[in-house]
């Protein structure tokens, strides 16, 4: 079940360095929201604050509020582990578990959390692999190691692994940057299908990709190197690319800087 994300006044630090400053935005359920902006502007950091992965980095801490359907992820009694089960994540580089087979990789989220029956597991794995458009390619070699797949297949395996635990939100941190155009297309198609069920947030450096897959686009920028990144604007994707309200956005999109 997709959920709405409501961020207000979010500031994230690495030690004493402020990486992103005072970000507020709303991410609509069952939609794709893309984050664009130059390197180092804090897109990925912001993404990682949405499932409390930021604090996994040594020195990482967060101020502000992230409401997931009215529940603050940074509330006093919130368990980060529970948050991450609700808000799944796909990383830049495909990272299947090297010791596990394809089947075990997809089952990892459920199995490592205990409490599943075998018959149920096979069902979930098949459903997730089909959801990630990978089932036909791997159904005959589910017991082979996941690291034997191609890069694009590995990334879809990671997506299958992420959706197997049935999260409400799926965060994707440049999921296609290590992939060739054909694999990228496969993943973009997949994103289009997944948004029927999940709230999707995707970080990308590829503006065409943002234009292709997203409903809304957020542009991040930083004043100078070493300065904290800021949200410049967030709007309908068409509006951002055709007629942005801030000059910096237009400059970035038209390639005048960054």
């Amino acid at each position, binding site marked *: 079940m997709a959920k709405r994300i409501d961020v207000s006044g979010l500031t994230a630090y690495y030690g004493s360095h402020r990486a992103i400053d005072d970000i507020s935005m709303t991410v609509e359920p069952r939609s794709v929201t893309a984050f664009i902006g130059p390197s180092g502007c804090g897109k990925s950091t912001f993404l990682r604050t949405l499932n409390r992965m930021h604090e*996994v980095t040594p020195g990482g801490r967060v101020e502000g509020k992230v409401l997931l359907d009215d529940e603050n992820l940074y509330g006093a009694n919130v368990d980060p582990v529970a948050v991450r089960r609700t808000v799944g994540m796909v*990383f830049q580089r495909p990272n299947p578990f*090297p010791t596990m087979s394809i089947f075990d990789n997809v089952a990892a989220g459920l199995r*490592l959390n205990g409490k599943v029956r075998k018959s149920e597991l096979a069902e979930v794995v098949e459903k997730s692999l089909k959801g990630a458009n990978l089932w036909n390619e791997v159904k005959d070699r589910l017991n082979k190691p996941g*690291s034997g797949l191609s890069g694009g297949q590995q990334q879809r395996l*990671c997506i299958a692994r*992420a959706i197997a635990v049935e999260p409400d939100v799926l965060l994707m941190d440049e999921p296609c940057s290590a992939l060739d155009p054909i694999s990228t297309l496969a993943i973009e198609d997949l994103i289009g299908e997944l948004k029927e069920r999940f709230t999707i947030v995707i970080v990308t450096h590829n503006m065409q990709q943002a234009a292709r897959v997203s409903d809304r686009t957020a542009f991040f920028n930083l004043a100078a190197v070493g300065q904290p990144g800021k949200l410049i604007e967030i709007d309908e994707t068409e509006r951002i690319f055709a007629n942005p309200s801030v000059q910096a956005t237009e400059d970035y999109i038209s390639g005048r800087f960054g």
Partner: protein
Amino acid sequence: MSHAAVQDTPTPVPPPGGPGSLSQRSLPRWAPAGFALLGILVGVGIGTAAGLDSKVQWGLIAVIAFVVISYVVTSTVENQRQARDRLATSVVWVCFVLAVIPLFSLLWTTISRGIEVLDGYFLSHSMAGVPSAEVGGGVYHALIGTLEQVGIATVISAPIGLLTAVYLVEYGKGALARAVTFFVDVMTGIPSIVAGLFILSIMLMTEIKPSGLMGALALAILMIPVVVRSTEEMLKLVPNELREASLALGVPKWRTILKVVLPTAIGGITTGVMLAIARIAGETAPIILLVFGSQLINPNPFQGAQSSLPFYIFEQYKAGEVASIDRAWAAALVLIAFVMILNLVARGIARWKAPKTGR
């Protein structure tokens, strides 16, 4: 380049090795072997001519001749850069040979002398009632002692070392982690006799009698830092992405470590533990102090004196009789084989458990 091709070209091709040419005169591929042969001949020649007795001197002359010849010939035929490359390569090869000679000599001596006595009887009998001057007897009691002491030491130190390494890599930060790292480094340098004395002092204070367990405790002190160090390095090699991937699935940290980090590193960890076992299997000093030594089979490590392979070798050698020295060599062979088999098992496990990449 063929001769005809040179004639066909309108502009003359510069001769090989000339300015502007990419090709140059070069030595044939068998040149290093030739230099080595030449060096050995020079060594043997000068050695016989000068009537040098020591074969070590022959070898040194041959080595120097080899290095000098390869450098001089290469610098005349090829160029300075190639000559320096050849010089470095020659020195590396010489060092390799120097390192390997003692190893092979040791293996050869141990095998050729040890094989005489080594048989089923030797492996299955103790020294009970066998005078040191007489043939017979065996190593069974020492083998049992070594297996039990090393086994207990491993059971104690593998979990402690593993958990310490997990703490250092996954949780530790700040002063405590630095202190632990420092003391692990200090422990690595503890001489085995000191570890033995430490346990001995406890035994004297609490009036405990020597037993295999006491020896195992001293061995564990020696083994823990080795296990911590090797496991730590292996855990650091596990990519952070895997930890993040697991955490992002909502898996708690302890399960991530147990199910993702440790399995990924298990091959290297096993190798590390096996190497640590190999290191302590040859310790003699703590055994002399704490296990006391025995000629009889004592399968109970918790009570009474035991023997062990290194102790047995020491004891048989000290007896000084022909028969006992033969037994010492055979026991040395058994010890080497024991360590070697452990190493092979470790490599097997490492290969079997290593992350698979096949399609």
